[in-house]
């Protein structure tokens, strides 16, 4: 029985996914990053724990909201049985319909979230109706924050937020929200947050610039070339000889 339910739900979700990719033009492939052949490209999705984390929150909220609806309905029914009976159908609808939508949206959100890391940049795709793709080069990153709540720790996931220079009025300290500030890339719900952080921080360490639009060339030609040094030596010797 449960297998059949699983089969049917899989089938329904597959159909929905087909509608999304076909009619609503949701890209099914992970985003690509332009890169040279020698570069390593890593594209991944949030960990499966992220889906479980979202579902756990979903069930908690479902229980609380539906319990409230049930209690209100019972109170009305006890006082005015006629009104309570009339409200029964809308109450059941309100209790069930949004849940299905939210449940499907959670799965779609999980399936449409992609993170791509290359040797010099990262790209994040997120969104169902409005698809948002963010590209940031490691050169421009200012700081990397890893956040993990108690629930997230239980599910073994964490959020990595990557911030670039620039302000955002609405943003509060330590609460990077990608919807409010766009100077931020959020890698949400990954199991190996520390590895990603270390990876990005090591790339950051290799960069010599301040990450604020200084030219690459400035750091590249900091020292004198061997030819220039040789000429300088010659000049010194010439002056010493006179």
């Amino acid at each position, binding site marked *: 029985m449960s297998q059949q339910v699983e089969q049917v739900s899989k089938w329904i979700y597959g159909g929905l996914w087909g509608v999304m990719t076909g009619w609503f033009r949701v890209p099914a492939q992970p985003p690509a990053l332009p890169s040279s052949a020698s570069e390593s490209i890593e594209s991944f999705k949030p960990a499966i724990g992220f889906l479980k984390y979202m579902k756990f929150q979903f069930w908690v909220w479902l229980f609380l909201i539906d319990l409230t609806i049930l209690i209100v309905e019972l109170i009305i029914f006890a006082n005015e049985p006629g009104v309570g009976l009339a409200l029964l159908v809308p109450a059941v609808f309100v209790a069930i319909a949004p849940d299905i939508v939210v449940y499907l949206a959670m799965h779609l959100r999980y399936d449409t979230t992609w993170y791509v890391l290359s040797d*010099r940049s990262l790209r994040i795709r997120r969104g169902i109706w409005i*698809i*948002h*793709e963010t590209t940031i080069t490691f*050169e421009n990153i200012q700081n990397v924050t890893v956040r993990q709540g108690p629930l997230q720790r239980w599910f073994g996931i964490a959020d990595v937020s990557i911030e670039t220079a620039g302000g955002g009025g609405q943003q509060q300290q330590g609460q990077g929200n990608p919807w409010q500030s766009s*100077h931020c890339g959020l890698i949400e719900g990954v199991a190996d947050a520390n590895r990603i952080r270390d990876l990005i921080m090591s790339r950051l360490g290799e960069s010599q610039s301040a990450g604020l639009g200084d030219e690459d060339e400035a750091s590249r030609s900091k020292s004198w070339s061997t030819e220039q040094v040789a000429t300088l030596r010659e000049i010194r010797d*010439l002056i010493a000889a006179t």
Partner: protein
Amino acid sequence: MTTATEDHARMTFDATSIQRPDTSLARYYGLVSLLSGPFFPIAFLPFYFKYITLRYKFDESGVSMSWGILFRREIQLTYRRIQDIHLTRNIVQRWMGLATVAIQTASGSAGPEMSIEGVLQANELRDYLYRQMRGARGETEATSDDSTQSESSDEPLALLREIRDLLKDNSSSEGRPS
């Protein structure tokens, strides 16, 4: 990761040829203003004027866009100062093949500094901008502009050689009479 079709698209895509938004942007603006219902004319008019006057200019070092009839506005930025690029497509834009390419610099505003709309090859444009960004170019790709770089960095060397030759001349001319 780069496939043959991607390479082909990159070859045929020329950002400097983009000057005007595509006509489908006008249709998109029309659809968006239809959402306001009875206020359609009021909502559409600013969109219409923006579309009519919108101009893009991509050159080697930066991009500028300008629009407006009564209140003119022109934004210029250099590729090297780009902090991050956002490509956003809502469902209507996806249907019409449009996208918004938002470019951010390190300025204080939370919103993007420039939103490029109405470019059909938005993915190619985004990747073009990405390749001009700081830190996006690899060592292998950097060799192409290294040749020009070494020419300009040759200048101090040339100057040094000149000084050396002058010193040589001086010392030899001083050496002769003594």
